[in-house]
């Protein structure tokens, strides 16, 4: 059976068995931390249910909340911009930076700016952009992309980071102690924070009632950047908007516990006004989000608060790594968001799911991730992206299974290996690479029944 891009990449990932095992364990460790901390709150499941309802409410009242948010933000002295797509977002950011003659920008972690491919855009305009989250900085120095939305460099071993830093930050060769390396990055990035002309951030939550944005970090990088530079540009996806503090209190309780198993992030920062003598811009970015609203089967994807819990629990993600997916967001939520972005381009991630449903259970806003993957699979045929052998097998199965007599006949002959087992046990070669085929019973249950061997006298 011709395999999908994900399956091919996953196969390569599994070639280094030791590293694949390490990757699986590193993420399982985070999943277990999440389990432990969620169980310290008796109200956890109610909290998830509230999180889901708050997001469904917010997304279904998006237009009015956006207007309220923008009006409040503007009253606070914030300059609010609206961007239809990634291109417009990047153009707005560039224009603001150029107006301020900003040559160097420090940026905190933002999946939205990854989505917009902002860094390359700015670099092409001669603006230097420094990632300030440690994981993101490691990847920037390495010239690679995040493999996880919360733990961007989770696929790299400390030795690889040590080697990279010795080359780029002049750390001691062979020293890969995480504390030593983190301190080296601290020194280097402090210099960047102090010399940057502007700070860019993402947004975790936008609060309609106050016009504030809230940013959650452990490192304090968003705060360092925005409190040392006069200019702050925050990029915010439309779906980040929630009504008020009451809603925020629910979602902040869910976010860090789900993401890393911490009771909270170190910093939960509320930005309402520009710093004294500075400017504060918020770019509201659509980039396809308003189209998702009409897609009732998949609208819940907009609930996502980007905690990454679905990745940590996904048995396929843990064993195949973030780079095995074609979309920049991997794992269960990434499979779904990729399909919403461009179904033809990203349909080959749909194989990366055994439908175990664990992701549904960890999602803090109860996105039905596995159900959505199942539903996307139903669309493959009409997209012209259905796997031809899978289709053939399914057609064969349908034929066999809608003809009970034929099915019974096939059950009688273990020699049906030529035909029915292909249906019953699917692709023989792929199966037999690592598993033996189960032998057929001498007599099927149906035969036993028909021969009267089952019923007690």
């Amino acid at each position, binding site marked *: 059976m011709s395999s999908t891009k994900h399956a091919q990449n996953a196969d390569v990932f599994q070639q280094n068995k030791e590293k694949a095992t390490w990757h699986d364990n590193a993420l399982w460790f985070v999943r277990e931390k999440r389990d432990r901390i969620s169980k310290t709150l008796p109200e956890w499941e109610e909290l998830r249910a509230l999180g889901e309802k708050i997001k469904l409410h917010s997304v279904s009242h998006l237009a009015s909340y956006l207007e309220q948010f923008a009006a409040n933000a503007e009253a606070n002295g914030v300059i609010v911009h609206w961007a239809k797509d990634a291109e417009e977002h990047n153009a707005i950011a560039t224009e603001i930076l150029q107006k301020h003659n900003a040559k160097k920008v420090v940026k905190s972690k933002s999946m939205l700016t990854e989505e917009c491919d902002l860094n390359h855009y700015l670099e092409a305009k001669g603006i230097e952009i420094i990632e300030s989250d440690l994981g993101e900085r490691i990847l920037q120095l390495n010239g690679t992309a995040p493999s996880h939305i919360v733990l961007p460099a989770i696929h790299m071993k400390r030795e690889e980071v040590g080697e990279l830093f010795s080359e780029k930050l002049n750390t001691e060769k062979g020293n890969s102690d995480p504390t030593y390396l983190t301190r080296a990055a601290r020194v280097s990035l402090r210099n960047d924070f102090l010399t940057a002309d502007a700070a860019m951030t993402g947004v975790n939550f936008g609060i309609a009632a106050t016009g504030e944005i809230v940013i959650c970090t452990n490192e304090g990088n968003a705060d360092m950047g925005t409190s040392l530079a006069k200019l702050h540009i925050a990029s915010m996806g439309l779906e980040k908007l929630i009504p008020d503090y009451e809603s925020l209190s629910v979602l902040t309780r869910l976010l860090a516990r789900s993401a890393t198993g911490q009771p909270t992030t170190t910093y939960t920062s509320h930005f309402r006004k520009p710093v004294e003598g500075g400017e504060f811009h918020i770019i509201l970015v659509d980039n396809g989000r308003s189209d998702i609203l009409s897609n009732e089967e998949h609208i819940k994807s907009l609930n996502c608060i980007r905690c990454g819990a679905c990745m940590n629990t996904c*048995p396929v993600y843990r064993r195949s790594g973030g780079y095995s997916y074609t979309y920049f967001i991997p794992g269960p939520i990434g499979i779904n968001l990729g399909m919403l972005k461009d179904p033809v381009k990203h349909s080959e991630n749909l194989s990366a799911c055994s439908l175990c449903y664990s992701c549904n259970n960890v999602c803090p806003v109860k996105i039905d991730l596995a159900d959505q993957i*199942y539903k996307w699979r139903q669309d493959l045929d009409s997209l012209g992206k259905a796997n031809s052998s899978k289709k053939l097998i399914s057609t064969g199965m*349908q034929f066999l299974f809608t003809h009970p007599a034929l099915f019974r006949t096939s059950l009688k002959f273990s020699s049906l290996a030529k035909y029915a087992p292909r249906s019953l046990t699917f692709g023989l070669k792929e199966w037999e690479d690592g598993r033996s085929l189960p032998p057929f019973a001498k007599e099927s249950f149906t035969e036993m029944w028909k021969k009267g061997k089952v019923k007690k006298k």
Partner: protein
Amino acid sequence: MKVGLFVPCYVNAVYPEVALASYKLLTHFGVDVDYPVDQTCCGQPMANAGFEGKALPLAKQFNDLFEEFDYIVAPSGSCAGFVKDTYPRLMEKEGCTSKVSGKVYDLCEFLYDILKVDKLPGKFPHKVSLHNSCHGLRELKLGSASELNIKPYSKVKALLNLVEGVKVVEPIRVDECCGFGGMFSIEEPAISIRMGNDRVNGHSDTEAEYITGADSSCLMHMGGIVDKNKMPIKMIHVVEILAAGL
């Protein structure tokens, strides 16, 4: 009480002893069991692969065959879960109504919730490692999934503990997927086989003599790995243990 025994296609062909044990257990508790011989497959393999349309005629066929029963019972959480959760939506698309979804049960679920079994006659003096299958756990809620903060319970374990002599243990990562997933197992062979190996090793590390579970498909997958790697651990369906001595 009339019960229709639903024997998933691969159980029929590969594990008829599981179906036989199911029949014995149900009749032991005085249930009137019939087996519609024209049954084939519920359609889940095609639907999970993305061909719900091809599952639809099977759903209709299943509906016609099993409509007359008070309960429909299957020794497979996954197949029962598909009939229960997916049939209604699937059939609605064609303007039909599923008359079977509300009364389909996994066998363990049926013994525990409907028959409220609190005694079993047999003995099984062995250490078994319980495989908590995904669909039984997360769709049919046969037990508390490890991700949820709910009171821990396991209907399967409770039933097993009624059998004299059995010692039930569970592997690390107590309910991680075995990697079968129907077509997933051949579309993503590297990951599927790795998941299966990890799961089998987890069970094996408990030093149990058997891996047991309520879903034959997971047992088939893990059994294939055990056999390929010539591991000493044996596979047995929960129903076979519950029917010991019958």
